[in-house]
């Protein structure tokens, strides 16, 4: 009898609760970290391409549906002080590149080279179909660092030539 009363008391509450909180298919929607980076992207923009402290990496292809441009500004001690990105790609691609710009700020060049796509994918909980976005983000940062290094080498060569 007591059990019956208890069951009858609980049922309307459960039904009402189910009415008020229908479970959305969380799997089908994006992870909220990706949505957050997408809605409030950090560090969108451009740095001066011609400046000697700026390295620019442009990776991907429009035919593949993903293009990332990553720019880093490095000070004289070899530390990255600013980073900006622009992306043509899906939400996960935008989130990956936004995250990478957040991560490289304040790192040295050597540390920035160690960023791996698996870290990015884990941080954003990317599903398997979107792993290529994180790989492209890793390529973008490596391309930017490479471009900076090439620029610095050119400057050194110029300096050596001038002194001769």
């Amino acid at each position, binding site marked *: 009898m007591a059990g*019956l009363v208890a069951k009858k008391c609980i049922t309307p509450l459960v039904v009402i609760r189910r009415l008020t909180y229908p479970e959305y298919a969380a799997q089908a929607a994006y992870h909220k970290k990706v949505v957050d980076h997408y809605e409030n992207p950090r560090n969108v923009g451009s740095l001066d391409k011609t400046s000697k402290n700026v390295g620019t990496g442009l990776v991907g292809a429009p035919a593949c549906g993903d*293009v990332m441009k990553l720019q880093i500004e490095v000070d004289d001690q070899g530390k990255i002080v600013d980073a900006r990105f622009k992306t043509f790609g899906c939400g*996960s691609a*935008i989130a990956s590149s936004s995250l990478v710009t957040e991560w490289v700020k304040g790192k040295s060049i050597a540390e920035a080279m160690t960023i791996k796509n698996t870290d990015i994918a884990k941080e954003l909980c990317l599903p398997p179909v979107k792993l290529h976005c994180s790989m492209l983000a890793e*390529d973008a940062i490596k391309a930017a660092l490479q471009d900076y290094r090439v620029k610095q080498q050119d400057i050194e060569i110029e300096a050596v030539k001038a002194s001769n």
Partner: protein
Amino acid sequence: MVADIVVFIGLWLFHLCSLLAKEQTGIDFSTFEFSCIQHSGNSLDICQYVGYLMRNNIFTELIKSRALEKDELRPLYMDFQATTPMDPRVLDAMLPYQVNYYGNPHSRTHAYGWESESAMEKARKQVADLIAADPREIVFTSGATESNNMSIKGVARFYKAKKNHVITTQTEHKCVLDSCRVLEAEGFDITYLPVKSNGLVDLQLLEETIRPETSLVSVMTVNNEIGVMQPVEEIGRICRSRNVFFHTDAAQAVGKVPINVSDWKVDLMSISGHKIYGPKGVGALYVRRRPRVRMEPLQNGGGQERGLRSGTVPTPLAVGLGAACEIAQQELEYDHRWVSLLAKRLVQKIMSEVPDVVMNGDPEQRYPGCINLSFAYVEGESLLMALKDVALSSGSACTSASLEPSYVLRAIGTDEDLAHSSIRFGIGRFSTEAEVDFTAEKCIQQVKRLREMSPLWEMVQEGIDLKSIKWSQH
């Protein structure tokens, strides 16, 4: 506030007591007629007062508002090519056949069967009237996919001995293309005709491709991705003159554009229920009787539906399809005018405010309710994510598991980067001007925002020609 709590607890206790009373005595208080209580004063006052107490109680209001919020704040539906909501009139027609007139229409021996059968035949007539056919030429199936499978595989296999060539186009629905692939594996010769850049079939090319061994030509009437309407009358004329059967997948066209199977010289036509505000899980196939189209049935059994599709016809679904067809026939002209108006409004709004937008498919030969726009320098999936308050669909790669864009856009020759940037807007009977305005404004806003984030837009602004850049292949 205190009174609210007291009333709520009181009502809850009353509810509990009535449930317990039902268990013990069998009297159901929930439907108890209060009017039979001899009470001083008008018996109606009690009911009204109780109702008033319940409605204005803060707890019931809270519960109701939370429940409603989740329901009302769903996105706007602008994807009418994927499926359509069921018209309430269709539901009204179906309901008696779900709970009351539930007999098997093929039962010959009792009234349940007879009434079910008469409902099914009435529905058959309604479907036939919409396409100007004879009711005996309509076969109920489980949907346009089954109808397509039946017609392509059935006709090809029947005439296999003498004719083993089938012609179709590259922009057909996946079920048609996949059926053709299966036939190829069986040894048939299939030609997938290319389409022009506006999405239409080249009639000259079709005439040249038809051989003496051709048994079937399959060309869809209205494409579900880009909305182009093929020149069905001319294709029918060509096929009839060359003695070839003509099948058309009219799932997106039935009930939206006027169809006459005799004028169009169509031999087989697939109809889908859930594209014309009918129920999901039902469709029909029109199979011409004069001249007779012979086909091997795909589904064998008790010989229902002229032996072409055995199996119990689902009476409620068939009745729903019939009702949907009748409503569509009555409202066809009005719907077409309404949809054209809204489509023109949407396209004009977007294209006047945003540069570099391309509409895929022929601008004239189309069904206005299916609009496929490519927004250059913005990726389709990111735009869909930005328009999260609107339910849309995209022809871009990221929404499919592979990195390939939609095959229809590839067939009409869209540049690969534009193919990744396309969005399909679907407008239907129940769309409103407010929805279209909201969608257009949101779209304009988000495209501008995403272009600010796009390196391609930046390069174009600087005057760089994107085609000249050597991209790093990933």
